């Protein structure tokens, strides 16, 4: 069996496109969790982003408008979540579940007329000169803009959390909202903004699925990627660099089924499709059982409601 370079490039590109939505969704949730909020509704926000982005891109013919709409849809759902959990102090776990159920239903309803419609996808952008490098250039410098954007976003979040004043405040709010409040920081406003950022990222992840990865709309097309993104944040122990690595690892597992047959491996497709979910469980077990680094990096106040009056 021979594997030539064009096949390697093809595999590489599918890994990138499978990993990119995970990167978006997970990096957003990472910031949300750093501020002490656990939003389990990533799956719902992704689907809302996917369906609205696809619809607008299809109607207007503008990919940019589509992406903006998808981001807005994700933020809108995140706003509902933030209002319920932050202003009305509802349970974050229950509200997150509600968000997912709502997102699945709403996207299926709105997406009904979109099923079966073809979309040419977000155009690729070749970086001048670099794209001409054999293999590497094809792999790294001929992607669509969102792929480049995902790397930039991870870098930006990483720098933001580590080096900026605002990033420090986000971490402080997640570590001890009471102390942050006592020092006069607006805990709820910080958490609102972080949650909205998470919604925007999840919306973007959804857009990538329906406008670049597929590109088409199908009911519940995210197929659990929102939940995998949540697991990725844990796997990354809330560090952006590890998160990027994890997303590509999962991207690789996701596309195994596409290429298994090409390598002559005959396994029922269902078994191959199970792989990402099994891998998620395995990774969670691995990270959770070792403990100490998880506890040190985990935002101490995650999932707890904050009562500023106390």
């Amino acid at each position, binding site marked *: 069996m021979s594997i030539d370079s064009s096949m390697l490039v093809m595999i590489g590109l599918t890994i990138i496109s499978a990993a990119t939505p995970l990167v978006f969704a997970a990096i957003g949730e990472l910031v949300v969790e750093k501020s002490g909020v656990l939003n389990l509704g990533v799956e719902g926000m992704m689907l809302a982003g996917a369906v609205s982005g696809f619809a607008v891109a299809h109607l207007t013919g503008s990919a940019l408008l589509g992406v903006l709409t998808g981001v807005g849809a994700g933020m809108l759902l995140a706003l509902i979540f933030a209002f319920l959990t932050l202003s009305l102090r*509802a349970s974050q776990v229950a509200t997150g*579940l509600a968000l997912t159920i*709502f997102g699945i*239903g*709403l*996207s299926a309803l709105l997406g009904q007329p979109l099923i079966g419609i073809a979309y040419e996808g977000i155009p690729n952008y070749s970086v001048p000169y670099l794209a001409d490098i054999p293999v590497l250039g094809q792999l790294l410098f001929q992607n669509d803009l969102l792929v480049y954007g995902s790397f930039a976003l991870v870098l930006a979040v990483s720098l933001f959390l580590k080096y900026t004043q605002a990033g420090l405040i986000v971490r402080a709010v997640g570590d001890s909202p009471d102390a942050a409040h006592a020092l006069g920081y607006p805990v709820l406003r910080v958490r609102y903004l972080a949650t909205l950022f998470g919604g925007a990222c999840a919306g973007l992840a959804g857009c990538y699925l329906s406008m670049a990865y597929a590109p088409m709309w199908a009911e519940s097309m995210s197929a659990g990627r929102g939940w995998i993104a949540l697991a990725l944040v844990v796997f990354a122990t809330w560090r952006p660099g590890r998160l990027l690595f994890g997303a590509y690892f999962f991207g690789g597992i996701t596309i195994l089924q596409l290429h298994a047959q090409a390598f002559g491996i005959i396994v029922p497709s269902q*078994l191959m499709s199970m792989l990402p*979910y099994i891998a998620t469980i395995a990774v969670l077990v691995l990270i959770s*059982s070792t403990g100490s680094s998880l506890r040190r990096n985990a935002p101490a106040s995650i999932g707890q409601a904050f009562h500023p009056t106390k």
Partner: protein
Amino acid sequence: MIRLQPRAEPSKLMGYIAPLIALVITLLSGMVLFALLGVPVGAAFYAFFIEPVSSLYGLSELGVKAAPLIMIAVALSIGYRANVWNIGAEGQLILGGICGGAVALYFYEVDAWYVLPLMMLAGVIGGMLWAAIPALLRTQFNANEILTSLMLTYIAGLLLSLLVHGPLRDPDGFNFPESRLLHDAATLPIIMQGTRLHIGALTALFIVVIGWVLLSRTMLGFALKVNGQAPNAGRYAGFTQNRLIWFSLLFCGACAGLAGLNEVAGPIGQLLPSISPGYGFTAIIVAFLGRLHPVGVVFAGLVMALSYLGGESAQISLNLPVAVTGVFQGMLLFFLLAADVLINYRVVWGRARTARRPSSEHGASL
């Protein structure tokens, strides 16, 4: 300006009223939604809420749909009270269906009294096995059960698909991905002639009673509640947390597994690639809407069953997508969570700056 003012003690009354408020607002929002979709509001309302229950058959269908929801939601309520967030009941339901169905197919055309009990047993065990995985991972490796139980749901769905495409496929079925139709001795007896209402509805009521006694009267139920509200207090009182996690998950696995078997051996009558319209997920909403209380769950289960029937009826008469049901369910849970704020807070209009004397405030919590 609206402000929230904490109550001295949570309001019991609001605990009952909040779900009703949520229902009413959901109905109103639903009408707005229909209007936005260009559907005649009156017709949609009729199709959704009146037509499905305007006949005896409709009412029996309500029971058919409500039974699995109630069974699972009672078990979930118990788990949620113990802070065990099993959201993979759907997967446990599927495994129950697979195991029970497999037993039925193994005894295909064996006309004996023991087939059905064996199937039920297999269904229960299947669900418990699937629930045992997150329990093991949580207690041994500290892995979050929300994520593991959900991942297992996806795996269960794929497993069912694999089986009905392969080993359990009907040999005479022209390669359709479905099993043989279960024979009479392997299907649940009907309890009302001319309907599909089967004895599964009775098992649901049985589980409600068990759940109620467990939560309100037993040491185990008390331990579960303490553990959910204050795990440290549970440890101090001498309750073993891991045992409670195991119990919560296994009990839910058993109930969901039985619900799955009831679907396969009841209304469906064979194994198909999909054996549930998301009962395991909807049961989460049922549990919350029913205040995590077995009796409340019965009412909530009937309401949510109606949303399924309404969705189907609206699809037939108004050509609305079935997904409307999901939107309704999500909205209902949102409004419920929002209305729950009234249990712990009272809503005050304007900026209350008046100093209150202790005496006037005491015991005045509605």
